[in-house]
């Protein structure tokens, strides 16, 4: 009897009087630790930049490395300011930036749209994907950047060949991701919505597209980089305006600082685009669970 009563009687735990106090101080300590880590992180990042750029500057100043070939950070900075203030021999530097940006954005939009549509279509149609599969592999194996030469010959030195080259480069990145995204749709979810009575169109809208979106958006980050590369290479091959032309001219003038200045401007643009894409990604994929690394153990 005593055994049963002992077994059934609930044992009350010790009243944790200071539980909330302990919690509060742990939160405080955690916040402090996190702040300290953040300071350390930025300090280390700054130190790294100083080490690389400072080292470059130092070695070129001491003529250990020849600034005539490799440029010099201070020279690059001066050249960049100069480009913005005085423009190039073809006009304002802003026109060049705007042209390159226009080509990249158009190419990106065109390539991404085509990639998404075709990726979704082929991902859903097994027969079609098996028919076209080998050809897509072949075209993917071709060094597509060379197509730029053909486009310049065919479409002149306006923005059309650059847009097309960008689009071709972007297309394959987005296409393969959209295609894979469709293939990765959860079988159970698909069966479930079909049983619930979804039409083909409803399946695409409610299941396939949102599911593939994770993959597609992941590819857009890389794709924008490719769009810029397409625009620049197109411009190097022949253009009236554009950052690619500025870089090419600087190369012709044996002016490495000018080449680096063009690269600097382009990287800033790409970083801004990356930032915008990340923002869009957060908005569109807000349903995703936070990654486990975001909860830091104290």
């Amino acid at each position, binding site marked *: 009897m005593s055994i049963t009563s002992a077994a059934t009687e609930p044992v009350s735990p010790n009243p944790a009087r200071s539980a909330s106090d302990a919690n509060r101080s742990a939160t405080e300590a955690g916040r402090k630790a996190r702040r300290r880590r953040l300071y350390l992180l930025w300090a280390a990042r700054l130190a790294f930049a100083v080490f690389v750029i400072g080292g470059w500057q130092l070695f070129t100043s001491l003529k250990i490395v020849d600034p005539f070939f490799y440029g010099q950070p201070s020279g690059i900075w001066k050249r960049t300011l100069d480009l913005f203030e005085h423009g190039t021999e073809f006009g304002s530097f802003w026109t060049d930036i705007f042209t390159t940006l226009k080509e990249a954005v158009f190419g990106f939009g065109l390539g991404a749209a085509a990639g998404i549509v075709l990726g979704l279509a082929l991902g859903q149609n097994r027969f079609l994907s098996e028919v076209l599969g080998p050809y897509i592999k072949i075209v993917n194996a071709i060094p597509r950047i060379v197509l730029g030469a053909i486009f310049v010959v065919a479409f002149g030195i306006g923005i059309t060949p650059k847009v097309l080259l960008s689009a071709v480069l972007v297309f394959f990145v987005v296409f393969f991701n959209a295609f894979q995204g469709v293939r990765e749709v959860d079988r159970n979810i698909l069966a479930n919505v079909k049983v619930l*009575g*979804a039409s083909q169109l409803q399946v695409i809208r409610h*299941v396939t597209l949102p599911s593939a979106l994770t993959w597609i958006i992941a590819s857009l980050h890389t794709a924008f980089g490719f769009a810029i590369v397409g625009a620049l290479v197109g411009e190097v091959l022949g253009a009236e305006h554009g950052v690619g032309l500025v870089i090419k001219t600087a190369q012709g003038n044996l002016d490495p600082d000018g080449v680096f200045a063009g690269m600097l401007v382009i990287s800033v643009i790409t970083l801004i685009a990356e930032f915008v894409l990340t923002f869009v990604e957060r908005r569109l994929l807000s349903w995703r669970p936070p990654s486990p690394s975001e909860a830091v153990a104290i």
Partner: protein
Amino acid sequence: MASRNQLANRPAAGAFDSDASRIEVTGLTKRFLTPKGEAFTALRDVTFTVEPGQFCAVVGPTGCGKSTTLSMVSGLDKPSEGSVKVGGHEVTGITEGISFMFQQDALLPWKTVVGNVEMGPVFRGLGKREARELARDWLRRVGLAGFEDHHPHQLSGGMRKRVGMAAALINEPQILLMDEPFGALDVQTKAIMQTELLGLWEQLRPSVLFITHDLDEAVALADRVVVMTSGPGSVKAVYDVDLPRPRGPVQEIRYEPRFLEIQHQIWASLREEVERAYARTAGVNA
């Protein structure tokens, strides 16, 4: 608890005595082509009937083709031989008036809880506003009021199951197909979900085809238990469970003498199959 029992004592809804929800499986055979190109018989000559409004459980060892049977009843898959009839009509496409519940919840992670539940009515052409209202109502019925705007990953396993249940029942299906729906839950949550399922089932009275590994679960919930053999799957025996309804909390049925009696009887038949199937897989691995 009391309210649930009162609801259960009410004369059940229309589906109960209409023949439209009878499931007749006759001579069902299913062969697959293995990746090596050989034919593999998953099911051979399976025959059983689920009466309208009946809760029928199918138990059997792993790999006996239970899930295959279910997908042919739903029309997602086609039989190689034999037929499945629902309400007297042969199943050719997706069967009308059925719902499916899987072991892994088939919730769309990018939709909110209410968005998931309202899919059924939306697919059936109900207006967005009415569908949403209906979904909210069903979420109240499964005890999830206040969680409408959460995303599935923010809920516990048991809560996700409730969402799945609401999503499956919102169309008031005549037939409910369940493929080990509670298999991934912990024991306590499982018992609670079983009790809630019984409560909802007693209100709507669809015919249920319930697949499980768990014999206790089968006996506690079902009116009829189909025992299947493995390799190839076929029906070994069919048992009728005469435990009175409403059965109340599942945790407590397990202690009733009649429950144990039936459970032993079916286990005697099932055990042999389980051991055979186990010996086969163990033999392969060794």
